[in-house]
C-alpha cells in the first residue's frame, strides 16, 4: 500500500471541475487505474464496464493492468477500499477526541457529509455501483460496515449512556448509510451538508434520547 497517494482528492477527480493540472494526475499507473474504474463504472454501470474501458480511461496498457490487478472486480474492490480508507481517516480525526460524545458525533457526521458532497461520483461508486457486483458485494459490505461500526465504538467515552439497544452502533452507521444512499438516488449528494442538523438528531436519539439530541440538532444548525 506504499504506492497509494497521500492526498486522495488529487486522483479522485483528476479532471474537470477541480481544474487540476494534468501533471498532477500523471502519477503511478495504479492510481490512474483506480481513478478510472470509479469514473467508468459510474458512467457505464459495472456490468457493461470492460477492462478495456478502464485502460482507455486511465491511459494504461493491458499488461500493466494485469500486473496490478487480477480482474475488473479486483480493481474495483481496491478503489473501494482506498476511498473508504481516506473517509475513515478524516472522520476519525474529527470524531475521536476528548470532548463530550454528542458534539463529537456531530463533528464526525459533518465531515462525513462534506466528504461525500465533495465527490458525488465517488459516492455513487461506493454505495450504488458496488451493490451490483454480485456475490462479492456481501463480503465488501460486511467488511466496510464492520470498520465503521468499530470506529463509532472507539469514540465512546464514560459520558456515553450505555445503549439499551445492543445494536445501537449499527443503528448509527445505518442511519448515515441510509441517508447518503437516498440522496445519491435522488441526485442530491452535493446538498448533503444541509441535512446535518436533522441527521444529527435522528442519529443521536436512540443513544441519548430526544432532549439531548435536540440540543445537538440546534448546535448543528447554528454552526
Amino acid at each position: 500500500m506504499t504506492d497509494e497517494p497521500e492526498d486522495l482528492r488529487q486522483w479522485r477527480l483528476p479532471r474537470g471541475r477541480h481544474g487540476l493540472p494534468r501533471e498532477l494526475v500523471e502519477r503511478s499507473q495504479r492510481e490512474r487505474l483506480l481513478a478510472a474504474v470509479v469514473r467508468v463504472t459510474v458512467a457505464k454501470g459495472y456490468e457493461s464496464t470492460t477492462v478495456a474501458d478502464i485502460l482507455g480511461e486511465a491511459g494504461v496498457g493491458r499488461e500493466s493492468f494485469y500486473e496490478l490487478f487480477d480482474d475488473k472486480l479486483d480493481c474495483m474492490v481496491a478503489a473501494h477500499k482506498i476511498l473508504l480508507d481516506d473517509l475513515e481517516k478524516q472522520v476519525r480525526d474529527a470524531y475521536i477526541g476528548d470532548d463530550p460524545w454528542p458534539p463529537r458525533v456531530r463533528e464526525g457526521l459533518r465531515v462525513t457529509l462534506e466528504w461525500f458532497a465533495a465527490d458525488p461520483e465517488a459516492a455513487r461508486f461506493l454505495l450504488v455501483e458496488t451493490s451490483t457486483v454480485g456475490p462479492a458485494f456481501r463480503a465488501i459490505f460486511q467488511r466496510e460496515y464492520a470498520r465503521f461500526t468499530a470506529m463509532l465504538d472507539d469514540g465512546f467515552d464514560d459520558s456515553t449512556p450505555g445503549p439499551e439497544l445492543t445494536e445501537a452502533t449499527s443503528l448509527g452507521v445505518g442511519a448515515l448509510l441510509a441517508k447518503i444512499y437516498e440522496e445519491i438516488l435522488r441526485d442530491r449528494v452535493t446538498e448533503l451538508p444541509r441535512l446535518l442538523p436533522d441527521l444529527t438528531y435522528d442519529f443521536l436519539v436512540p443513544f441519548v434520547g430526544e432532549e439531548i439530541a435536540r440540543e445537538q440538532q440546534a448546535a448543528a444548525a447554528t454552526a
Partner: protein
Amino acid sequence: MQKHRSSENPGNVLRPTTPPDIANQSQRRRIIDAIVESCAEKTYAATTITDIVGRAHISRTTFYKHFDDKRACFDAALDHCLGELQDIAAASHSPGDPPADAARKAATAVLETLAARPGLAQLLTGDAIALQPRVVERYRRATVPALKALWQRDGGSPPQAHTDPRLAFGQAQVLILNHIATGKADRLPELRGEIVYLTVSPYGGHEEALEQARLARETATSGARAR
C-alpha cells in the same frame, strides 16, 4: 393450457379436475417459487430459463406463456414476495391493538418470515437491489405509509413524527442487510429489539419505542435467546 397440464398429469387426461385458470395460477406460482429458489442458490445473473423450467417442472413454452423473459419473471417474483410480506405484516395484529403494539407485532412477524424463508430474504436484499438499486424506495413506500396509518386509524389528524420515518426505515434495512450479508439470515429475529425500536420510534417516540423493544425481546422464543 389443458394439453400441457394433461401431459404432466397422465391420470386425468379426459377430465381435468382443476379449472384451467387455477391450473394457470399454480403454474405461475411454481415458476415464481422456482426463480426465487434458483436466485437464492446461484444469484439472478447465473440463473437460466432452463434452471427455472427444470425446477418448476414445466416446459419452456409454458414459461413463455406466462412471462416474456427472465427479467419479467423476476419482477413478478419480487411483486409476489413483497405482497406476501405485506399480507403477513397486516395479519399479525388486530384492529384493537394500540398503534405501537401493532407496529411491534408487524415488525416481528416480518423478521420471522425473512428468517424462515432465506430464499425470499436473499431475493429482496441481494438480487433485487443489484438489479435495480431504486427498489429500496419501493420497499419504503410499502412500509412507511402503512406504519403511519397505524397511528391514524381513527381518521384523526396525521401523527407528528418524532424522528424521520424514512431514515428509520433505511436503518432497519441496513441492519437486516448486514445480518444477511454476514450469513445470519436465519438469526434475523435477534434484531427484533432494534427493528421494533425503529418501527415504533418515528410516530411513537423514543420512550415508547424502547418499551416496545423490551417487550419484543421478552417475547422472544427460547430458541432465539439461547445463542
